[in-house]
């Protein structure tokens, strides 16, 4: 199998990010800030970067966006462009970078994402859904609400399962000085939280944030040549997608996360029980819970037993979203989770998990339309 041969052959050589919150800066500037920080962390000069891969800003898509960022970086990378796949695009671009390096198309890739919906335009999250807007079908949240309801109906999922997820992530975010929302909540707070789109409460929903994050990808061999200080090996990576809109899916309670994870776990040669710490994409609490199930950390419908009593909090069985995830650190999708997964392997996380051997991260996009999984390790 080709995938297994890639195990450990590529590394995240550097990471960088901006502050998160309301920044009042354009997305090109934010990308440059994150890329500069990532290059400094890797100890790499921009002239040596020959691929600049970006996720399109969710809130305002632009033509030739990748080239705009390259221009602002003063770079002429051989490879460059902007990928549109929702939040899964970040890990997909790391995957593409690995494949491009493997085939000799480039040697050092920057993968970056920035958006500014908090100070800019956040209408994308409340947008009408084609002709179905006539029925009042608007927003990103509502699609997740449909999935949340279907999960509760099929498995009698305890509302406290969603609460446990939010409580753990918010508790971690409250201890992260760079988190946009540093406010822990209790189960009572969660259950009293106002409806947005029932069954979604305010505390089920991620933040809307300005911010950017970036990573440098290269081969482990190249990292040795360049004497990169703290390269973190990519042991497994995978992706899969549902494609269909929520209302056209034959089943709302399964996602392609399972297929994505299978590839990443097989490539890494590990099982869910081997994972020390996980950054699980949490645009909504249902996303986090279903990802835990679909990754095989527990049975379908068994997620409350898995998360209850603080088991996904720092110090618990599987600490999840140790920097605060999308619910607390930043709504900036995907890459900030990758950065935290890297810090956990390096031993430099704010809420460090001891003896991290395998550090997992999930990304997903749309309304569970797209998914990607990565396993990093020492």
């Amino acid at each position, binding site marked *: 199998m080709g995938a297994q041969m890639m195990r450990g052959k590529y590394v995240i050589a550097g990471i960088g990010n901006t502050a998160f919150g309301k920044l009042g800066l354009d997305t090109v500037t934010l990308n440059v800030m994150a890329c500069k920080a990532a290059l400094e962390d890797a100890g790499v000069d921009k002239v040596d970067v020959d691929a600049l891969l970006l996720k399109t800003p969710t809130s305002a898509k632009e033509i030739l966006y990748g080239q705009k960022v390259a221009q602002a970086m003063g770079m002429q990378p051989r490879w460059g462009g902007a990928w549109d796949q929702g939040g899964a695009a970040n890990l997909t671009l790391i995957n593409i970078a690995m494949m491009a390096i493997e085939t000799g198309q480039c040697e050092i890739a920057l993968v970056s994402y920035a958006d500014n919906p908090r100070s800019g335009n956040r209408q994308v999250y409340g947008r009408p859904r084609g002709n179905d807007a006539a029925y*009042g079908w608007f927003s990103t949240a509502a699609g997740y609400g*449909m999935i949340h*309801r*279907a999960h509760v109906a099929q498995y009698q999922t305890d509302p406290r399962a969603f609460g446990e997820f939010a409580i753990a992530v918010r508790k971690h975010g409250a201890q992260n000085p760079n988190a946009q929302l540093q406010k822990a909540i209790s189960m009572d707070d969660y259950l009293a939280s106002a409806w947005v789109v029932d069954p979604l409460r305010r505390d089920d929903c991620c933040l809307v944030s300005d911010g950017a994050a970036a990573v440098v990808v290269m081969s482990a061999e190249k990292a040795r040549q360049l004497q990169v200080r703290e390269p973190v090996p990519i042991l497994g990576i995978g992706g899969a997608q549902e494609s269909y809109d*929520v209302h056209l899916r034959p089943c*709302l309670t399964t996602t392609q996360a399972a297929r994505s994870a299978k590839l990443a776990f097989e490539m890494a040669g590990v099982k869910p029980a081997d994972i020390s710490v996980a950054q699980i994409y949490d645009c909504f609490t249902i996303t986090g819970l279903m990802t835990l199930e679909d990754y095989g950390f527990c049975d379908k419908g068994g997620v409350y037993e898995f998360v209850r009593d603080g088991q996904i909090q720092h110090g618990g069985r599987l600490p999840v979203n140790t920097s605060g995830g999308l619910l607390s650190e930043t709504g900036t999708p995907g890459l900030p989770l990758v950065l935290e997964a890297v810090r956990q392997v390096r031993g430099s996380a704010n809420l460090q998990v001891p003896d991290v051997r395998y550090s997992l991260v999930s990304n997903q996009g749309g309304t569970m339309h797209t998914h990607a999984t990565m396993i990093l390790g020492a």
Partner: protein
Amino acid sequence: MTTEIAVDVDSINKPYWDGLKQGQLFYQACQCGHHWLPPSRHCPACLNENVTWQQASGEATVVSWVVYHVAYNPEFKDRLPYNVAIVRLREGPQLITNIEGDTQRLAVGETVRLKVDLGLEQPLARFSI
């Protein structure tokens, strides 16, 4: 319930919207056996262009639903809280709709019946519990 969100009628979906003006819900069918909505030029299963229209019986089951407590569009401000549901027609296609009637009884798997809202300039395919 009224709405002023205009639908985008084109050459492909016109029979669907015209059908609702007659109180009838049509879906698309292909000789490969696939039934679907929303309307498309090709069968999404086999990509055949020989698409036919069939009238739905009007019987459907609830796949899931949500209740909006936030209006993402000013037209819906006065309707809060309002529901939006996914239903599966007995014939297979799934669609977005609103459920009327005794919504306290709303549940996944519940049977609902087509009740085209003819009081609108462009009638909509709502369902009743």
